[in-house]
């Protein structure tokens, strides 16, 4: 399972599908007047538009980072290397398109820490100069090349932060995509049908939400191993209950609305009532929750990784960056840039997401709209 997930072709197909379905949804919604109005409403707020562009920038980086890219291996003479038996071109292990783009910076490795834009190493070293042993900072191999400095093993922090965007976005989006349909289906069914269905679902929900989230995720990761997909799944399962409750309540209210009664009185079958009358009228809640949930998942990943139950240390994420910074903060002089970079990049994603989410909520709220 994990093999397939990590395979090159699977990831590229997934990314392609995601982009295509995203465009399809947008095109479909553009035809509905309701959403067009909401779009216009959002566009009226300058802050929201700026936030939207920031989010787009992040998404773009994450998309580029998700597209697989393989370089053909070359020998010393610059000739393409071929498989001696089949004669096919041999590729390297492959990375993402972003890896390819960042090759220029990420390949410039230093020995150890260096502060942002510095020309010399951060660490004092003993240098033997003219017979005298001096403690001084040696010059870097690539002076001034590291915008945000380097870490303990001399890797560029800016590159790491950029690479972390994808991890954060994948966790945010995938967890939301796992939790929302679950919550939507169950919440609406529970509220509309009531009775035994409602009782059972409510019971499951209560049990699930009484397990401490951290404990649940920790045990899930222990059983299925640490990794991005496992974390998404665990967080998705742990987080659908809130939206489920919200949607169940809203459906209970909508069920008594006269337009639903009118549809039932018309003899419309119940699945159709759900699909055409209930679901469209809770979609604004779903959308708002999804946007706000997204940002909280990004933050949750950082917290979980810090606790040691998030993604493994082989995956670059803001959580692992913060985890590394734990030891760096105790040094003197303090090494601040890694933590600050992770913090700034997270803020840059979460804050616009929240502001944009608020704007979308205002735009979709029918009570504000009627004026």
């Amino acid at each position: 399972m994990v093999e397939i997930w990590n395979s090159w072709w699977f990831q590229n197909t997934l990314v392609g599908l995601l982009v295509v379905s995203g465009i399809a949804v947008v095109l479909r919604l553009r035809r509905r007047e309701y959403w067009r109005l909401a779009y216009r409403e959002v566009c009226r707020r300058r802050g929201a538009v700026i936030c939207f562009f920031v989010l787009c920038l992040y998404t773009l980086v994450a998309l580029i980072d998700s597209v697989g890219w393989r370089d053909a291996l070359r020998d010393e003479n610059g000739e393409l290397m071929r498989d001696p038996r089949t004669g096919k071109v041999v590729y390297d292990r492959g990375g993402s398109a972003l890896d390819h783009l960042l090759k220029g910076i990420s390949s410039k490795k230093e020995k150890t820490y260096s502060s942002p834009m510095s020309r010399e190493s951060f660490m004092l070293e003993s240098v033997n100069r003219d017979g005298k042993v001096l403690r001084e900072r040696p010059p870097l191999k690539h002076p001034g090349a590291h915008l945000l400095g380097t870490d303990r093993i001399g890797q560029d922090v800016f590159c790491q932060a950029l690479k972390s965007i994808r991890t954060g976005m994948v966790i945010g989006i995938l967890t939301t995509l796992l939790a929302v349909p679950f919550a939507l289906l169950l919440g609406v069914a529970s509220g509309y049908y009531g009775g035994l269905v409602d009782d059972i679902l409510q019971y499951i929900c209560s049990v699930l939400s009484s397990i401490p989230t951290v404990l649940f995720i920790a045990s899930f990761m222990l059983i299925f191993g640490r990794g991005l997909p496992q974390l998404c799944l665990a967080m998705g399962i742990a987080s659908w209950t809130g939206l489920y409750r919200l949607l169940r309540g809203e459906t209970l209210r909508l069920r008594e609305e006269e337009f639903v009664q009118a549809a039932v009185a018309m003899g419309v079958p119940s699945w159709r009532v759900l699909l055409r009358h209930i679901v469209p009228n809770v979609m604004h809640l779903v959308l708002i929750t999804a946007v706000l949930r997204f940002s909280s998942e990004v933050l949750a990943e950082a917290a979980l990784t810090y606790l040691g139950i998030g993604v493994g240390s082989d995956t670059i994420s803001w959580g692992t960056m913060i985890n590394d910074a734990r030891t760096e903060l105790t040094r003197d002089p303090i090494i601040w840039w890694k933590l600050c970079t992770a913090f700034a990049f997270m803020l840059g994603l979460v804050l616009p997401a929240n502001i944009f989410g608020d704007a979308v909520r205002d735009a979709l709220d029918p009570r504000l709209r009627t004026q």
Partner: protein
Amino acid sequence: MSEDKDIVLDVRDLRIGYRQGSKIVCAVDGASFSLCRGELLALVGESGSGKSVSALSLLGLLPKETFVVEGGVAMFGGRDLLAMDNEELRKVRGNRISMIFQEPMTALNPVLTIGWQIGEVLRTHRGLNGEEAKKQVLTLLERVGIPSPEQRYSDYPHQLSGGMRQRVMIAIALACRPELLIADEPTTALDVTVQAQIMDLLSELRREYKTSVLFITHNLGLVRQEADHVAVMVSGRIVERGTCDQLFSRPSHPYTRLLLRSVPGSGHRGSDLASIPGTGSLVSADCVGCCFASRCPDVIDRCKVERPGMSLIEGEHQVSCHLAEKNGHGETVSSQEASVSRERSSSGSSILSVRDIRVWFPVKTGLLKRTVGHVKAVDGVGFELSRGETLALVGESGCGKTTVGKSLLGLVPRTSGEFLMRNKETDGLEPIGIDRIRRRVQMIFQDPFSSLNPRMMVEETLSEGLEVHKIGGNARERKSLMVSLIERVGLSPEALQRYPHQFSGGQRQRIGLARALAVKPEILVCDECTSALDVSVQAQILNLLRELQASLGISYIFITHDLSVVSYLADRVAVMYLGRLVETGRTCDVLGDPKHPYAKALLSAVPSVDADSDGRKVLRLSGEVPSALKPPTGCHFHPRCPLATEQCRNEYPPSADCGGGHSVCCWQCN
């Protein structure tokens, strides 16, 4: 106004603007009125005419973001209310001017006891402390007719019924013996019998405390009954004012005349009600002519270019109309409503027979959800309905009339009983399955704002029924069906491509009607379908319903608490009380000569605009409808009945025939 009287409030040329996007439109445009001590002035107008806005502006209660007071003075006790700052206004509010709101359910704070809430006013404005305040509160509670005030003092609002809460609101409003009371539709949310109680209390207290009342309402019957002076508002302007008698006997503005004639009643039976076209939308500030010009049937060229001033007719009766200036008082044509005699297509054979329907809702408690009792919402109701006939189900809220309608369509499951419908082939009455019944019976709902899905275009809403019942083979056929439907209810075909929020309340009700008609039903259940509408719009819908019945031969089950609508539209009436029918019969029999004490009380509680009704015997009911969970033993009505005897307390009366299909369930009438 005569100067010798003691004027409490004098409002001159009040102008209030309403922000709509970036521009400002007139919500109130030069309204002037004054109130003498102990007088009741009624402000009448359709929704959006600016009557509530005017009243709220006096206390500085308008939201500042949307409303701007642009000018005018409101002299109260020698000071201009509009010029006061917040600190001064706070001393006036609740002390010298107080207010009663429409919704008694939300106007009280649910987490504080009523004693505390009444006491708060006394503590704030009178500086009374604990014991003194409590003593005052108890006297007040007793004064507004709340039984055992000692116990009620520490009750929370949810423990009281709607009528009781409104009494508490009145107690709060009158705690400081204000000089002016503003009552904004204080009885609209209440049942008619409770409304009568509350109005009696108000006028009694008004006389005792010499309080002036500014009464905002759309109920013309109440105005006729209670008001000393009346001011009629249209689109933010006062178009006519005078004493109650003057206004009702000689209405001079075209709007007032139309309004009075749009009130349904037995006098209009068989003819169309007058309807006022258009809605009372706000006028833009640059409107030069008469604000009613675009809707007036008697409009002349001058109306469009010149704003009419107030002209005197006689005494205090003033009107703002060019036509009235010209010929004394506006004696104009406007008798254009043709008296179309109603073609009764009602044939004798019944198409629906309801037999002994019971709808009991189980009350479950405890962990295992054991059933401990039943709310008997409907408890053995039966009636017949003929083709093309209108049956009115009448009763107060909670009597189960809506549940009868909903159980007919299977929206609530019934506990026992059956519905029989005429089978066209065998011509006999047969039990009918729920799928078939939903094609032959349809429903129109009360609230035009929640009865249409806000996310669906009108076209989608209408086509839903067609698709489900496979009417119209393909999309083209369906489309033409929908166009004819929407034209049938008086809207243009462009309406199909629009969303519900783009329509007014009356138009939405028309769409709801079109949706129900889509499946060509034989019976329409109208659940309070006009009670949320303005009187003039209600008249339009009632006219439409009548016309549809004449042309399509549909039968109506009209569920309502509004007896004026019943007397206008219904052929037969069934009066319900606590889940059972207490009296049924032809409209003229039941409304003309009610036998059951409850029906009598219900009828006498309804205020009427007709002058001759002043002398009728008033039968006031005490108390309110008991809970359907524990209905009283014997006759359900006996605790409130003035004629109750021992037999009434022990046995439920059987139905007795009074002849002509008129039957009553009462021991005293047998």
